């Protein structure tokens, strides 16, 4: 068991999400930065879909009631393991009654913590990802106990990632044309792919709004399917980038679609961070 002494700013249980359930209107969910999610599980040789903790902005304080091994990936963070500094991308051996205190994210805004075998919390609609309307709570709360597997073997040295750690300072967000992009006037198209955008304070697991407005004459469209990474343009000119917990349908024109890589990069950005779109075509 892992006991939540303090839940942090916004910490949730995530796995790969609920792909395949969208005909019921269920959000995709899943880890916002899939790249860091995958590394966290790979470094423990966990199943690909093992559930872990996604910590946003500031991490939680945890107490372990069982021996295990954990790994942190994603945004740099001050982590104290029984008072001693611990590093990311390297397995940490945990003994019974160990205390882990996670601080604030430094570069990037989402840090991931995997545990050996993955979190064993309840599966709802074939996923453990916490999501509004699907699970009882959208995030973990103080005093909650998270079930984990018993450690059955010793890890000799463990695997540590030696290659350069990912950088989240990248401002370039790779995009493809959305279905309604060609309906925009060419001046507007040019503007969208050449100007810098700032992430508004309205950013969460559902969507990121951008501050700079784009005036346009696009009509609303018949409600249609959207995906995480779809960039919508609202009638008042706001760009909204849909994220993992977004609604599965929308009625605003879809002007761009982020690449998977770009979606993971954007997930590490937060309020007031800047970006620009780089238009790419499918090979």
């Amino acid at each position, binding site marked *: 068991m892992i006991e939540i002494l303090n839940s942090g700013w916004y910490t949730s249980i995530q796995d790969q999400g609920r*792909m*395949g*359930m*969208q*005909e*019921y*209107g*269920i*959000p995709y969910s899943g880890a916002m930065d899939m790249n860091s999610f995958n590394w966290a599980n790979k470094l423990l040789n966990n199943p690909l879909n093992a559930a872990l903790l996604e910590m946003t902005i500031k991490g939680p304080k945890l107490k372990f009631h069982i021996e295990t091994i954990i790994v942190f990936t994603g945004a740099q963070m001050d982590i104290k393991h029984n008072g001693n500094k611990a590093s990311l991308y390297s397995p940490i051996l945990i003994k019974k009654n160990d205390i882990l205190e996670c601080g604030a994210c430094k570069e990037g805004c989402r840090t991931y913590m995997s545990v050996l075998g993955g979190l064993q919390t309840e599966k*709802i*609609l074939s996923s453990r990802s916490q999501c509004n*309307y*699907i*699970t009882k709570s959208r995030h973990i709360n103080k005093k909650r106990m998270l079930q984990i597997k018993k450690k059955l073997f010793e890890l000799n040295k463990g695997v540590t990632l030696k290659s350069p750690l990912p950088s989240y300072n990248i401002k370039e967000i790779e995009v*493809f044309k*959305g*279905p309604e992009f060609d309906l925009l006037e060419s001046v507007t198209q040019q503007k969208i792919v050449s100007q810098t955008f700032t992430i508004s304070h309205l950013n969460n697991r559902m969507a990121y709004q951008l501050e700079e407005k784009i005036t346009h004459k696009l009509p609303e469209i*018949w*409600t*249609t*399917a959207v*995906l995480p*990474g779809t960039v919508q343009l609202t009638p008042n000119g706001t760009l909204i980038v849909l994220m993992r917990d977004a*609604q*599965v*349908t929308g009625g605003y024109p879809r002007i761009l*679609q982020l*690449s*998977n890589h770009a979606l993971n990069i954007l997930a590490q950005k937060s309020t007031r961070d800047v970006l620009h779109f780089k238009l790419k075509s*499918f090979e």
Partner: protein
Amino acid sequence: MSQGKSFLRIFQYSETSILLEFKAEPKLDLLTELVVFKNLLYSNLCGVRQITLSYKSLLLQFSNPLKKYKNLKEEILKLYSSFDSSKSIIKSKHWNIPVCYESKYASDSSILSKHLKLSRHQLIKLHTKPIYQIYFIGFLPGFLYLEGLDAKLYYPRKKSPALKVSKGAVGIGARQTGIYPNQSPGGWNIIGTSPTSMFDPNLKQPCFAKSGDTLSFYSISETTFKKIRENRIPPNFREIIL
């Protein structure tokens, strides 16, 4: 661009998905075509993981990044030119959904009655008469997009959405009517509340209805409302052919 059908364009939407857009108006013919073609694609297209239907399009998602988009596009076009939706028989269901229209459960009924110049009785009659077509589920888990609202009941959405619309609330927004599956913010005018559970994440099939099904509402008393909600009585249905 096929013969006499409504296919408009095929478009790579993301690294792992393809969008098919149809030119026709979203009427029953198109819905039937979409449902039939969706089934055909599921059984004939290799690697397709999920197909999502909406008013005028199908979104095809694949398990892996698309390496041979051109081949896939040709295959889809070939399948499209060879199928005939008019020959297919789709088994669907018609659902009877109970609604309590009493004022306690219908916060905006009096405003609607006043502006639309309809008595409460007329309003209920106009809302319970049509057979609504279920197009797809979106917006919220278990929220059905319905077509078939009587034009006499068209009424604009609220200028600023209510922060709390209760679970089961039945509303009218512009040309649409629908049921809120959960408590949420919402901009529609509430004319009744249904005791039927529209979405239950603990069920394997969390929403009973699907694209191509139909639905109608019937008026119930507060006593019946309570009985259905407390006992979680599922809605009645009958088999139909789309």
